[in-house]
């Protein structure tokens, strides 16, 4: 709990206890209970809606079960063995990581670029900011359907635009297995870049002008100002933005893939979530789907832990 107090509240545990009447073990215990009581509603919801389903999922993953029968057959680790041998699941995992890392990089790079551009005094700046943010308001289903038609090879705008440019090689946006996943990832990037742009604009506006003035006196060029002033100043927002993008990309890619390609062609856009849902609800293999979910959970937890460690280290270094 002390560690939690240190990390979450940013206040050493001893200081929390020393504020109370008197000192000693009893006082610390009461402070602990009070903190726990304040957290309890959220903890309870967390236990009921996150931990219980997680535990239940873990148990089910050791059974063969269609999701409906009253009886389940114990199969031990077989579902896990089968999942690790399943070439479609392995492909789906690879696609999931490609998707998550790709869109995280693209959204943040584009978002920062747009933020820098729209932080300058430009004509129609407000219009461009609004236009950039607008896709965030659309649901993934709307975006998916919209872009499916834009990418349509028969009457889509994308091919029409390429034709206008005088090019006659039309990529199979959603039909070429080598391109389809990138097309779907682009829709995610298009939808969320505006959100990251807004985060970065807010961060950029908070960077003190004095720092840039000092850098100018030191003879810093544009790149040096960006590298040594802007980036360190907005580092916490970059970390937050990357965290939001990464976690979102891992858990919120189902809708867009389902709507645009359904995982095809030839599983080229199959991500772990679409495959898990398909396995659970269409193939009625709920135990197997749960085993795949657990594997995904472990992998995402590892990525999350690495990122958290990286962020904490960054914070300690800057402190």
């Amino acid at each position, binding site marked *: 709990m002390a560690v939690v107090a240190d990390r979450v509240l940013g206040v050493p545990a001893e200081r929390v206890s020393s504020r109370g009447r008197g000192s000693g073990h009893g006082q610390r215990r*009461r402070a602990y209970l009070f903190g726990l009581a304040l957290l309890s509603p959220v903890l309870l*919801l967390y236990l009921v809606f996150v931990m219980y389903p997680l535990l239940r999922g873990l148990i089910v993953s050791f059974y063969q079960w269609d999701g409906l029968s009253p009886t389940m057959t114990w199969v031990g680790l077989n579902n896990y063995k089968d999942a690790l041998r399943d070439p479609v699941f392995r492909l789906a995992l690879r696609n999931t990581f490609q998707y998550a890392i790709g869109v995280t990089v693209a959204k943040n790079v584009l978002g920062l670029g747009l933020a820098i551009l729209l932080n300058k005094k430009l004509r129609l700046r407000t219009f461009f900011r609004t236009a950039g943010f607008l896709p965030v308001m659309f649901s993934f289903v709307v975006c998916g359907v919209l872009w499916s038609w834009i990418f349509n090879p028969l009457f889509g705008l994308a091919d029409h635009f390429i034709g206008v440019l005088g090019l006659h090689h039309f990529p199979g946006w959603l039909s070429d297995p080598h391109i389809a996943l990138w097309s779907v990832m682009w829709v995610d990037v298009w939808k969320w870049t505006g959100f990251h742009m807004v985060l970065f604009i807010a961060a950029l506006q908070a960077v003190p002008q004095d720092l840039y003035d000092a850098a100018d006196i030191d003879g810093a060029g544009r790149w040096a100002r960006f590298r040594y002033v802007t980036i360190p100043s907005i580092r916490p927002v970059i970390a937050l933005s990357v965290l939001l993008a990464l976690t979102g990309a891992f858990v919120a890619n189902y809708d867009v893939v389902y709507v645009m390609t359904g995982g095809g062609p*030839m599983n080229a856009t199959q991500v772990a979530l679409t495959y898990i849902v398909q396995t659970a609800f*269409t*193939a009625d293999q709920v135990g197997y789907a749960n085993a795949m979910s657990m594997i995904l959970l472990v992998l995402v937890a590892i990525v999350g832990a690495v990122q958290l460690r990286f962020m904490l280290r960054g914070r300690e270094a800057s402190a």
Partner: protein
Amino acid sequence: MKITFRSVWLSCLLLGATIVMVASSGVAISTAAQRTPLVHSSPACQLNLLGETRSSPAETAAWNKVFSDFKSRFHCSVVATWQGQWSGIPQLLNEARIAHQTVDIVADGTYNYSLASAGDLMDLTKLVAPYKSRFPAATLQPFTVDGRLWAVPDEPETFSMFFYNVTLFKKLDLTVPRTFAQLEHDAQVIKSRTNVLPIVEGGSDAWEWPMWYMATFAQTSGNKSVPDTIAFLEGKQQFTSAASVQALEDIAQFSKDGLLTENALGTDENGAVAAFVKGLAAMMFDGGWDLPTIEAGQPKFSIGVFPFPLVVSKAGVFVQPNGSPSEGLAIPSSIPRADLPMAAQFLEFVSSPLEANKIQSTLDPEVPTITGVKPVSDPLSATLREYLPKTNSWLDWIWPADVVTSVENAIEGVLFSHQSAMSAAKSVQNELQTLRQEQNYNYDFWATWSKAQRSAVEPPFIPKVEIQK
């Protein structure tokens, strides 16, 4: 803030109250779920129907009229959830069950066998017996497994077929193709003399592709595709058989000869229909269910249909379209027992000629599935009715869901040269093998079911239904 003993107690009290509140709501949810059957035995009778989105506002209106008539006659309202495509029905049904939402009737088709073999449907054999004669035997066949009936048709028969632009064919002086060579010739003429795509396919809807395999396999198997498929599912034949591999190679020929391009994977069914209606494509291979949509698009040309051409030149082999009623109505095995009498009555009511006519008339029934329903009489009807005696059941109605997905991927791979026909066939064979080993799949599920499993899908009693004229 001072942390006093009193504040700790207050917090504990708050925590206790929260626990009690959440726990009691949980109890309430669970009790509500357990009591669900009783809700429907109340005077406010209600049946819940789940099905895919209706094909037109006219069809939705017709269903609403039937619901209204049913309510007037039996004092029971029907609440329909028309949602998504047919391919999403198993998922929606399972989600509804997990969420303890009652589904009394489900409109299904392709997944009828999958749902029945998973124990999701009720055996309707005895329930439907009093009015079974309404349905021509062939229309019940796709819903029958091991002599047990799992659904009754509510929509007309539809078949796989090529739609074509008659006006363009006449302008280019083309004949309706009967063989693959003729089709190839027509396609080359269209490509060389117009900017129109020879064939459009909504292949991003992966379920379109098995129709191609069914058409070619019907011929390569010597018109034994259904028994051969059952033999494959029973483990007596391999998907890597010469006939099956040849069927895949025959499909691949369509792309090798430029009749289909990989763009087909970037267009869904709606996109393909739109392209055909706009005159951007000369031909489209799909199901008869698209005919009302195509006609509603008011194309500026006449529409014609022809069956999949002959790809095999062996004597005695003939073209066989695949088809069945587009949809059937089933009763989920999870139906609250109190709802069963009214659900059984609804099936009887909706399949009575008077009511069925209201629904099927909005679907241009070339071949109705209920005796007494009036077929449409247009120039296409005669052609379509010619197909009926030779029609095969859809194979994806009997393949398990995993095999369907595997076949879809195999065809996409073969068609666009990402894998050989043999390698694709092996992947399907392996999928079935995996399903057998890992999930104990068995085609003849009834024979392997325990007594408890059987009784779970058999009606606990046979309610008396009033037969409509």
